[in-house]
């Protein structure tokens, strides 16, 4: 894993335009030596899953503030599975109430980072949990 550069798709599902967090994460991961692709705003789950497959990424990081995470996060995971890319790890962050976190994890989201998380925590978590895909 150590020698392989991880490829991460940072994605903004849903209609909210709050991209401050997504862009900071994208920069921090790049500064940590990862290859980062950022989707831009207002992406549908279909657009995100297609981009993940096309770009052959190792993980997808979803950022959302609009409250639609319970709908959109599982949709991305289901679509990745449909495309035979269920091994791409999915993590997320944003305004996500505590009660929703166990439910999201049960639905297949590997980790959720809430406000106040440091970018270094996220970098460490990715290094520890995301395997480079061959």
């Amino acid at each position, binding site marked *: 894993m150590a020698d392989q550069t991880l490829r991460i798709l940072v994605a903004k599902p*849903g209609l909210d*335009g709050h991209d*401050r967090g997504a862009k900071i994460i994208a920069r921090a991961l790049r500064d940590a030596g990862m290859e980062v692709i950022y989707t831009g705003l207002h992406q549908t789950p279909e657009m995100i899953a297609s981009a993940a497959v096309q770009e052959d990424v190792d993980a997808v990081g979803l950022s959302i503030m*609009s*409250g639609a995470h319970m*709908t*959109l996060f599982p949709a991305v995971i289901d679509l990745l599975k449909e495309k035979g890319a269920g091994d791409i790890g999915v993590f997320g962050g944003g305004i996500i109430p505590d009660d929703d976190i166990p439910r999201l994890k049960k639905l297949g989201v590997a980790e959720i980072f*809430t406000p106040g998380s440091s970018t270094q925590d996220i970098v460490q978590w990715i290094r520890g949990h995301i395997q480079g895909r061959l």
Partner: protein
Amino acid sequence: MPSQRRRPPSRAAKDAPRNVSGRTARAVSKSKALPRASKAPRSPGTRLYDAVAMRAVARETARWDAETLAPVTAKTPLRQQSFQTDSGIPIPPVLTAAHRRSATQESLGLPGQFPYTRGVQPTMYRGRLWTMRMFAGFGSPEDTNKRFKYLMAHGTTGLSTAFDMPALMGYDADHPMSRGEVGKEGVAVSSLRDFEVLFDGIPLDQVTTSMTINASAIAALCMYIAVGEQQGIPMAKLGGTIQNDMLKEFIAQKEWIVPPRPAVRIVVDMIEYCSQHMPRWHAVSISGYHIREAGATAVQELAFTLADGIGYVEECVKRGMAVDDFAPRLSFFWDVHNDFFEEIAKFRAARRIWARVMRDRFGARDPRSLQLRTHAQTAGVSLTAQQPYNNVIRTTLQALAGVLGGTQSLHTNSLDETYALPTEDAVTLALRTQQIIAHESGVDRVVDPLGGSYYVEYLTDEMERQALEYIHRIDEMGGIIRAVEEGYPQKEIGESAYRFQREVEEEKRLIVGVNAFESDQQGSVEILKIDDQVAESQIARLRKVKAERDPRAVERALGKVEAAARGTDNLMPPVLEAVKAYATLGEVSDVFRKVWGQYREGGAF
């Protein structure tokens, strides 16, 4: 700093602006672009301080520096090598009248007097308190109507409507893009029927209403006008504000439908229409709030927002409108963040810059065209999920800064807003915060209480100088629309946001409960949940509206919207006709997408 002792107080003498006031004004009248502050001549005017006395103060300050300050700092070093504001403005060890030796009465003015540094009204809160306008909107129109009535019963003095993401992006509740979003981040509205429910039982001639909506603002305003007509209230009697600031959408908030140029054309149509038909309505609220929340510094918020304002005025003038016909109804919206004095200075600098720009660059003569009137909101981005009750304290300090800065209206955030939209209890506490400042603190009794403070005046001058540099750079780029198309403000804001995050992570900047004074005990707060049932009932109502309306009338009206969009006729009359025929917000937006295309931003970061 021994080498600098000859011109005391050392750093201040170097860093303090040589009075910016007035200099721009004279030069600007000759050229369209604002001159660089550093090249401008010294301002004429009535000196506030006697030159001989100032030399004595400067000498005394030099002596203080050497004999009083230096021995102390030699023995006990300062907590930091240097101090600066959150925008990076250096803060000298002490400020005295000597720093203000070239200050003039003309650059300060008196309250209600050009250049309005001290406030736009001569009486300020002695005449009338600021409007306590609590932003509300969630779930169904019924839910939000109930919250409006609750807030009115508890002393809020103006309504303020938050719309959900589908409405802001021009999609109806049944659109595939609206999945999971209906009613989540604001109230769900698709058609006039929803507006009828939203304002049911609220006489629109007795309240003023603010609507935070931009890309689809034209449909929302027309629906509001239509509800007024149903209540028997002509549009001329409707009072309020529609945010309708598309430039800041492209810069920061990023809710859009069509590209910048057609988006601004719609804004100008609305300003033009309102200036002719709605004398009590503010057709645009030029907003720094979202620019700041996206990561801008206070100086950048000030600069980019005023540049947006200049952009709208230029476009209206190009349209052939006389500046004094529309400028009196332009309004502003600032964020109030943590750095207490810098925030106060921002309000003061904004008023002074705007007054001069309007008078000297655009030739406005009506005093109301020169007065920057503003709403303000405490900084949502400063709230923390950790130890949420601390947010009450942050909001209190920010609200106080907004009031000391002289805002005309204020929203205070609720302590639970890092988790979700606020509960009724949380929003009540936020409203009470304003009421305590207004009725118990005593700050309402005097106009511009910090006027003349060496520090606040220094910050006001310095923020003005730095903002004018940005505005000059934007002028050189060909104006704000071009700058936005090139992504210039977006990039500047991204840099600031990243720098801020690094400072937090490196603990150069401490945030209580986040990277300092952390506590294991998580304060838990009750959270407002939006039922998915809302989406179903909204979609059902939308289907009913579509089944009951006259499809030919809708088609005819939308055809007129398209014709106006392709030509140069004002879009307001055909959109008004369309929404009255129950054409939906999504259908009106679809016409715009068809004519101008859907805007998309690239994935640069």
